[in-house]
């Protein structure tokens, strides 16, 4: 266990948990942005520079903005009322479920013999290699992702756009 | 074409930039405390008293303490006390003079009414505006000595009005002198040349600039 990984894990899990527990939606969104940045830090630590920067660009730069806009556009009333939890039953149920899933996952992790190379060779994946792979073997996937993004963009605009005949009754 | 307006605007500002270094006419900034402020001639702030002679301000005040300005002043910031005695004025005629003449500049509203009503052109509006004081009452209350400023100063701050005033005064004095002369002549032509009014009407103040009113002895203010 490296110290850096421990630090990243603490920040990451802490901000994610705080985001899920916070009663202030804006704080949740900002804390979650912190968690996404923490994930980028993990990628950086793992040597996947390109992915880390892409993660920051997409999550911290774009998704967080969309989330914040959504929060502000769907605010009820002028005051930012705290978002309460629904009921104890729900919270307890969800924690039990999550705990169960976590137990299963951890059990699986420690129960599986992973063949780890004794000394992991330093990953030497340059951006150039990555680009060549994307354009070579994965070109079709890249195109499909492009199409998905375009469709999602158009779909989001269509869904979020104001309907033309606004109902007169408020 | 999109962008042509932007280029034109950039040209204008570039011209401004270059011009600001070699064309002083473009610059509108006056660096005030370093270079004195250039005030327009008609600028007016607080009144001052015109004296005929710079060397003897108190002796040659044009003011005759008629107190019209004191009565006219809307905020009543002028305070005048008449003298008990008379002193010869610029033309040599004995006149009253203000024993006390004070203006409270904290109260003065620069309306220029005192100047309008003065029949003797004795009070005029000044160009000074740096009259800050560190106390609240005494510093802003200007007395006779502080108010008196020579006619040359008046010429300096607003030449046109000063020339006009001087011209008028000279004309009046000349007319008065001629009238006196005519009266004297008439008197002389009259039967017996008695000698009743010798020293008063004859003198030299017929000269246009009455800057030499002799009475040095009258200069000592009471």
């Amino acid at each position, binding site marked *: 266990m490296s110290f850096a990984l421990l630090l990243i894990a603490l920040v990451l899990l802490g901000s994610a948990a705080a985001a899920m527990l916070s009663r202030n939606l804006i704080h949740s969104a900002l804390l979650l942005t912190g968690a996404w940045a923490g994930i980028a830090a993990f990628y950086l630590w793992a040597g996947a520079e390109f992915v880390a*920067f892409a993660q920051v660009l997409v999550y*911290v*730069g774009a998704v*967080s903005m969309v989330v914040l806009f959504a929060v502000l556009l769907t605010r009820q009333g002028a005051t930012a009322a705290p978002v309460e939890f629904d009921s104890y039953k729900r919270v307890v149920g969800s924690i039990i479920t999550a705990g169960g899933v976590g137990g299963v996952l951890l059990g699986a992790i420690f129960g599986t013999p992973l063949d780890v190379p004794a000394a992991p060779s330093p990953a030497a994946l340059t951006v150039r290699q990555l680009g060549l792979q994307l354009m070579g073997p994965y070109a079709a996937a890249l195109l499909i992702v492009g199409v998905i993004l375009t469709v999602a963009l158009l779909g989001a605009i269509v869904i979020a756009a104001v309907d033309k005949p606004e109902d007169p009754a408020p | 074409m999109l962008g042509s307006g932007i280029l034109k605007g950039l040209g204008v*500002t*570039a011209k*401004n930039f270059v011009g*600001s*270094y070699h064309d002083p006419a473009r610059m509108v*900034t006056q660096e005030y405390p370093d270079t004195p402020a250039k005030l327009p001639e008609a600028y007016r702030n607080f009144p001052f008293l015109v004296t005929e002679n710079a060397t003897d301000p108190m002796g040659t005040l044009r003011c005759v303490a008629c107190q019209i300005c004191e009565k006219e002043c809307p905020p009543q910031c002028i305070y005048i006390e008449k003298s008990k005695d008379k002193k010869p004025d610029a033309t040599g005629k004995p006149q009253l003079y203000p024993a006390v003449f004070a203006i409270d500049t904290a109260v003065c509203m620069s309306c220029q009414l005192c100047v309008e009503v003065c029949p003797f052109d004795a009070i005029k509006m000044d160009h000074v505006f740096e009259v800050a004081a560190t106390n609240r009452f005494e510093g802003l209350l200007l007395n006779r000595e502080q108010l008196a400023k020579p006619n040359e100063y008046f010429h300096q701050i607003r030449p046109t009005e000063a020339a006009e005033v001087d011209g008028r005064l000279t004309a009046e004095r000349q007319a008065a002198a001629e009238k006196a002369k005519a009266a004297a002549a008439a008197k002389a032509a009259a039967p017996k040349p008695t000698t009743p009014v010798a020293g008063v009407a004859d003198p030299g103040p017929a000269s246009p600039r009455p800057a030499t009113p002799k009475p040095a002895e009258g200069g000592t203010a009471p």
Partner: protein
Amino acid sequence: MSVVATDSFLERAPLLFRDWIVGHFPVALQWLVHHLLTITAILTVFGLFFAFTTIAERKLLARLQNRLGPNRSGLPWFRTLKLWGLTQPFADAIKAITKEDIVPAVADQVLHFLAPVVIVAFSLLGFAVLPFGRYLIPVELDAAILYFFAAGTATELAIFMAGWGSRNKYSLLAAMRALAQLISYELPLILSVVPVVLVTGTLSTRDIALAQGGWTWGVLPHWHVFTPWGFAGFLIFLVAALAESNRSPFDLPEAESELIAGHLTEYSGFKYALFFMAEYFGLTALSGLGITVFLGGWQAPCAFLEFIPSWLWFMGKLAGMIVFFIWIRGTLLRLRIDQLTRLAWQFLVPLALLNLGNAAFWALTSGWTGPLALARWAISAAIVIVPFFLLGRRLTAGYAPRTYRYAA
């Protein structure tokens, strides 16, 4: 390229100085000192650059409007020495630090405090990958361009934090405007750089700067801005960079006439100064990227000027860019919010996409020589100029040319 010119003492002087200092420390600490020195150098140089940018901006703006600008602040104890007011930024700094720090009672204390910290921290990150000279690049990253844009995104978050944390309607409105603006212009900004990445085939700023080396006949530099696609990309980059750094004519988030001071309304003293600083750091970093990507980085414009060290060329170009931005600020009026977004989505983005295709054409036809080279230039120029006219006409339809009914 003579060895003397490219490897002179001056060229290496900053590195030699750093190594000399690092050499005084024990080996175990050397890497730490090495990085700390780099950070300190960046902070010092660009802190001072920021300070003098503010005074330059004020003086230049004044001159552009036929005024004098600040020229009074001298030195303490030497009253007669005026120094043309060049010590003004230090006086401003002292004023900002000593002013009272006011936090609104209902503000979100944490976010209100964090916003200026975050914005300064992230606006400084971009400097890490800029090649300031032939041998002066703080961090050599394979994906430097991507890193640069990733580092810049957090400033948007900080602006939102400032706007929302202030609990002020004007601040929030400004924050929303800022978000809309920054998201809108992020796209043309990145799209304007992508053609360069396409042609040079690398994301590393060092390699991009190196790719622009060399001269035709020793005087015509091979900078990207001197190609049709590069020129168009540079213009798009300039506009987008202005908008990204919230500068006039795109300073809507802090439009004084409409929003008081935008997201800065509830900030005072040093926190306000931090926002100000971040804005200039962002502008400087973006200018640095523009220079690296389009204006040849640290390369000298002519072969015989190479004796001047490369980092001086970079700083000179940087100063030039800043002066140009100040000139723009002194000239243009603020856009309206709808004009702003229209300009981004209906003009810059389509043009940037076309320019990407243009760069692809340029890269594909790199073998054309002789008369074909002329054809290559003509086609490439047509690809950007024709859409520029068409899109521009659509954009300005109803606005320009403007007729003034009452003006003479």
